[in-house]
């Protein structure tokens, strides 16, 4: 075989390897984005499960906070209904839920009996941690989306992304202004 044939074969092999590497990198990032999204979902569901228990425990002690408790339950039910809706609507409902929850946990300070209840303290720790996990998983999701989107837009991987239809992902933004400003009361 002439030298030229070897050269051509070599170039093709090298190109194929580069293609594989770029493609696999994109797949890995896309899966990371998917996993990160699933993680947010897990934590949001966990919050739906925790709230009824918390409200039930708090009800006996917080006679004067009926409205706050009802608002929490309402926001939770709304958020759960919207959990299959689009990301924008969902983010709004979840933001609303976060802000009524922080209001509830702020007034807990006025009820020393409730604060002495072991069951409530355990629930509060779980809920606090779940709130943290939601924001950390959102943070990781957005970081992953940023990395993935950069990869789909930058040369040379954008060529591979275009060839195989890797589309840019959406960020999970907190659209509600209330959630951005309100948390003067953090319950960490």
């Amino acid at each position, binding site marked *: 075989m002439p030298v030229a044939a070897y050269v051509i074969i070599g170039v093709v092999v090298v190109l194929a390897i580069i293609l594989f590497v770029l493609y696999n990198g994109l797949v890995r990032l896309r899966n*990371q984005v998917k996993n*990160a999204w699933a*993680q947010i979902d897990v*934590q949001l569901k966990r919050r739906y499960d925790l709230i009824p228990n918390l409200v039930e425990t708090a009800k006996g002690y917080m006679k004067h906070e009926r409205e706050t408790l009802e608002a929490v339950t309402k926001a939770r039910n709304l958020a759960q209904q919207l959990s299959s809706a689009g990301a924008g609507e969902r983010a709004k409902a979840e933001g609303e839920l976060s802000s009524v929850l922080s209001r509830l*946990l*702020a007034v*807990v*300070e006025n009820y020393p009996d409730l604060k002495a209840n072991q069951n409530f*303290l*355990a629930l*509060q*720790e*779980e809920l*606090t*941690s779940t709130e*943290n*996990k939601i924001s*950390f*998983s959102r*943070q*990781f999701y957005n*970081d*992953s989306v*940023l990395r993935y989107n950069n990869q789909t837009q930058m040369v040379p991987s954008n060529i591979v992304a275009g060839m195989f239809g890797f589309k840019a992902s959406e960020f999970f933004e907190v659209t509600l202004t209330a959630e951005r400003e309100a*948390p*003067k*009361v*953090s*319950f*960490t």
Partner: protein
Amino acid sequence: MILIGYFLGLYFFDSAIAGLLIAILVWVVLSLIAYFQGDSILLSMSRAKKIRRDDHPRLYNIVEEMKIASGLEKMPDIYIIDDPALNAFATGRDPKRASVAITSGLLQKLNRDELQGVIAHEISHVKNRDVLLMSMCSILLGTIVILAWYGSRIMIFGSMTGSRRSSSSGGGGQGQAIILIISLVFIILAPIMAQLIYFAISRKREYLADASAALYTRYPEGLASALEKLGASTGQLKSANKATAPMYIINPFRKKGMKASDLTSTHPPISERIRILRAMAGASFNDYDQAYSKVHGGTGVIPAASLAAETVPITTTKLEGEAGEPTELQRARETSDVMWRLGNYKTITCDCGAKLRVPPNFREPTIRCPHCGRTHQV
């Protein structure tokens, strides 16, 4: 190390290959042990006890939060070391088999945000694969020290009895002498150089883990304030040893008044780490790098590949002493409850408020409260 092996072999066996083989064999065996058993050896050496979620929900939750923030695939195992000293370490050869251990003293002293910072620092070690890197480095260092030590012993011994080999081979007396001198120099210098390089790598990885912790928590103040508490304590960890030192969050052997530019320390000085964390304008690697050059001068503490130009804001919503945060006294009680439980003691809370700790070998069906005299079923 290869050079040491080479000259050892050349001098004693008249064959460089034999020396090289010794060096490589020792290294491979040690690496394999460290690779497969390193984490369990380390954990049992430090007498760490594994906890489950129910034992300490808050600690478990904090670790899980940091696992999520760092994107680790698997939840690391959590261990507690019963020691009043304040320290923590991470181990495990890859992110899928990681463990985090903290002392009971730390669990009492730190509040939630501080604990989060410390755990984030440890998870960063796992995520950056520092555990593997540092254990390989320490094996390399150990092998060099062992070989150099044996080399010096054999040389002293050999020079006393008169080397048979050099007389039997005859002729090249001058060549032998040169090789002897070169190998001596290597035997003396190599361990020192290796140690300095090892310490430098270790310090760099500490800075990187601090930067990652700030990025994961978005709250550098948490780690800074934890380091402040750690720095103020003087207790030394009993179960630490030199080989495991780089894995801890602060140097377990540190003494008061250590110099800032100490070349022989596995960790950067705590005060400097705190100042860097507090000088950060945002929470990204970039901000850490800038803060580092402001405090320390020079750049390049973070590998260039992981520097991104993006800005990451610091969380400002965290306030000290908020609702639901247990006080230090409550944390101390909580921690001692966990430690008794891990020792298989049963805890009975009497109606008078006293807590009875029943040892695992207690055989009687009932126990009397020494405080008020009520009897309890065991």
